[in-house]
């Protein structure tokens, strides 16, 4: 449950912040959310990863379909990729940055393994 809450929070926060701030703000967003909501390492990383990967994938795919792949195809060709793979790599890059942001927050937490599993179930 906590994981889903984190996902939604990170997606929302990133969506708003990204309208004005550079890409690395997703790491900060995932860091902050994971700082406030304590979970284990896996959850910290993947909450950030999936939140931003999903967000970036949806936004990129939206642009791609609205513009009939006009630029996606050219950029994909530049990197010898398909349009879908370019979108997927976009999602993964964003996901990694946010995932690492989330994981960094986790490292500041003091809770033991026991308490984590208790919360997480």
């Amino acid at each position, binding site marked *: 449950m906590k994981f889903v809450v984190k996902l939604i929070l990170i997606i929302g926060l990133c969506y708003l912040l990204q309208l004005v701030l550079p*890409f*690395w703000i997703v790491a900060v967003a995932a860091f902050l959310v994971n700082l406030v909501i304590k979970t284990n390492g896996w959850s910290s990383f993947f909450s950030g990863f999936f939140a931003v990967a999903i967000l970036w994938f949806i936004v990129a795919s939206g*642009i791609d379909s609205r*513009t009939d792949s006009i630029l996606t195809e050219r950029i994909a060709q530049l990197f010898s990729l398909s349009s879908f793979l370019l979108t997927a790599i976009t999602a993964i890059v964003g996901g990694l940055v946010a995932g*690492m942001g989330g994981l960094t927050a986790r*490292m500041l937490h003091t809770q033991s393994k026991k308490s984590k599993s208790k919360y997480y179930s």
Partner: protein
Amino acid sequence: MSIYDHKSIYNSIGICIKKVLSFRLVNFDYKFRMRIIKFLITLSITLGLVYTLNNQLVINNQPIPPLGKFLDPFQGFWQNATSDPVPYSSEEGLEGLTAPVKIQYDSAFVPHIFAKNKEDLFFAQGFIIAQHRLWQMDFQTYAASGRISELIGKQALQFDQLQRRKGMVYGAEKALEAMANDPELYAYILKYTEGVNSYINGLKYKDLPVEYKLLDYTPEPWTPLKSALLLQYMIDNLTGWDQDIEKTNAYNLFGKDIFQQLYPNYSAEIDPIAPTPSTGWDFDSLKTTPTPDSIVFNDGFISEVTEMPDPDNGSNNWAVSGWKTKSGNPILSSDMHLGLNLPSLWFLIELSAPDYNTMGFALAGNVGVVAGFNQYNAWAFTDVSRDERDWYKITFTDENKEEYLFDGTNIKTSKVVEEIKVRGSETVYDTVIYTHHGPIVYDESFPSIEGTDYYALKWIGHYPSRVQKALIELNRSKNYTDYLKALENWDAPAQHVAFASVSGDIAIRVQGLWPNKWKNQGLFIMDGSQKSMEWPEFIPTDHYAFQHNPNRGFVSSANQHSVDQSYPYWQGWASPDNYRGRRINSILSGYDSASITPKHMMELQQDDYGILPSEVLPLLLDSMRNVRSDITTDSIFTSLSSWNYHYNADYFAPVAFLSWWQNIKRLLWDEMRNEEIALNSPTDYQTIHLFKNGIPSGLVDNKHTAMSETLNDIISMGYDSMKHDLQIWIKKNEKELNWGNYKSTSIIHLARIPALSTMNIHVNGEDDAVNSTKRNHGPSQRIVVEMSNPPQAWAVIPGGQSGNPGNPAYDNMIEAWREGSYLKMNFLQEPVDSNIIILNQTLVPDKQ
């Protein structure tokens, strides 16, 4: 940013971690210390990741854009994609305007700018062109000034060095000085600059053209010098080609007689642009100094020549008198042949302010329009194919090259240290030595380290150019007299300026600086220490050749010899056309009175008939029939025999002809392919002429074979090589072997990025046809203007109005260009309320 910078960052992170590990905090327990360490490690990895994704990486010499920034769908390249061809805001508040400027975009995406005064008009032009083409205009100034290494690294170093040594910035600075001396013009240029900069200043990373994101840099502020650099770039494109070094080599290698047979200054048959009138030219020509006794050096051969622009850079233009047209109005046509690139070289625009209303093709970076029309006149350009660059051999008197010999005395040089920044590597310094002739281009280190001599470049591009003034004057000209007055300012590059007016005039002038050279001056490298070798004074502008309402009812030019040999001033031709001009003239002559329509003129622009093959192919076929009686059953031979000489994209015959012809020339002129001696083969025209009139003895035989070939043997061997080459082509390309596929015309992105280019366009034409479309070169625009009141025009460019590869208007006109159709120009003259307008944009003064 190089890999090494990243390494050093990682190293310092590592040192930090080590320090933390060794830190003794007695009061902290072990667990806490471990947590801090884990946190710092994770944080470092995160920061390292962000840093890496925020910077350009170079992997295997391939630059990778900063992936985080670039792929971010909120700010990165995704944001450059748009389905709206005019994705511009309907109102912009801009500091620097005095009154609101209205811009209407029509359904062809052409902006029509309406301003209350010319200052606002040119401010808006700068803003609008930047809104469409910022990266292109910026990048072209980098190219002009030799700064490409700054963007892409070492591989552009030789190019940049050459630009610096040619004195591109030196020439642009002279042009800028000339502009600054004209207060009215300079005010416009400053306003234009302000307009460009007001666009740049409003940009965030998200809004940057995608090329900035790809190459990871940001736009520089625009300056008047950048506008001058763009003109310099055009001057270089049109006058930056000569064969002086190759001709010097050829003269010394073959001797005077053979040289003259191979490389005559005039072709045997010419159809000049401004023939000498039967009554002669109406001026008293200046005296010309006699040719010095010895004008050719003979002290060794030069093996390498620096890169030069395509010698086919040129154009077609013509104007027909009202009595030849169906409507009774003159019609003007123009297509300028240059490298085919994306974003398009030209930008279609209408500019309107009190006492100034013009429409046509603007360059991205210059005030006004270049070729176009207004309510009264239309004008267009083709290049004068004259040798406007000469080389002087410099004799230095000391090792440090402080002084050189000239006219019996020593003259001091000046030195400019060129600082060439190189991305990912150390800055390169190149000292360019200036003599009074011009900068030294060739020396012991350039273009290769084998050089021993010093050659200074004397170039028309180093004179102050006032063409920007001439253009503005043409834009607002009202009649023939105004056209002449405007052209008084046109100095370089020399152009054939065709003209037609609503009042019924047609005209053409051979306009541009030309020194009163002695016969053969500048054909060869000249001795820079002799005064007699210097360029004499320029001929007076009223001695330029011209045609005004000639009896034949049309004027035309296609870069052929501008004048005949009766013109009193000697002309050194660079690479004059021998075919297009004759074809245009024969077609225009063929029209009866009151018959020509704009449609006919469009058809002529698409004409793909080749006079070249028509003059040589029958001869080649005859030769084959004589040598090989069985050849007539060969399928390629029958295809060639029945060819109508049209370079049609669907045909096979032009493929076979071109390959055969190239192979024949390769075998015949094997003497010209010499590693130690830079040489050019004779032109196609001259080769055919020699076929018919005898090739100098000894040159026919191919030196690479044991036998002694006759011309028939060479033709026959060429045929076999052609068959061989075509078989290889078929194996390599899984496509039908036809002219379109073989020629494979491509419109290449300026940064040579294939993914942003349009490749393999199936299009008719060849460089010797009126439709001169070849592989990466051809009509960069086409326009036909009928001088009705107001004029009507139809135009097309091989690309589109937008410079953004993510915009549908980036390449939307390529198909029309390919198939030879046109877009009707909407010459609005004042704002309209009509459904042809798809966007109204207002630029409003914003005083902060």
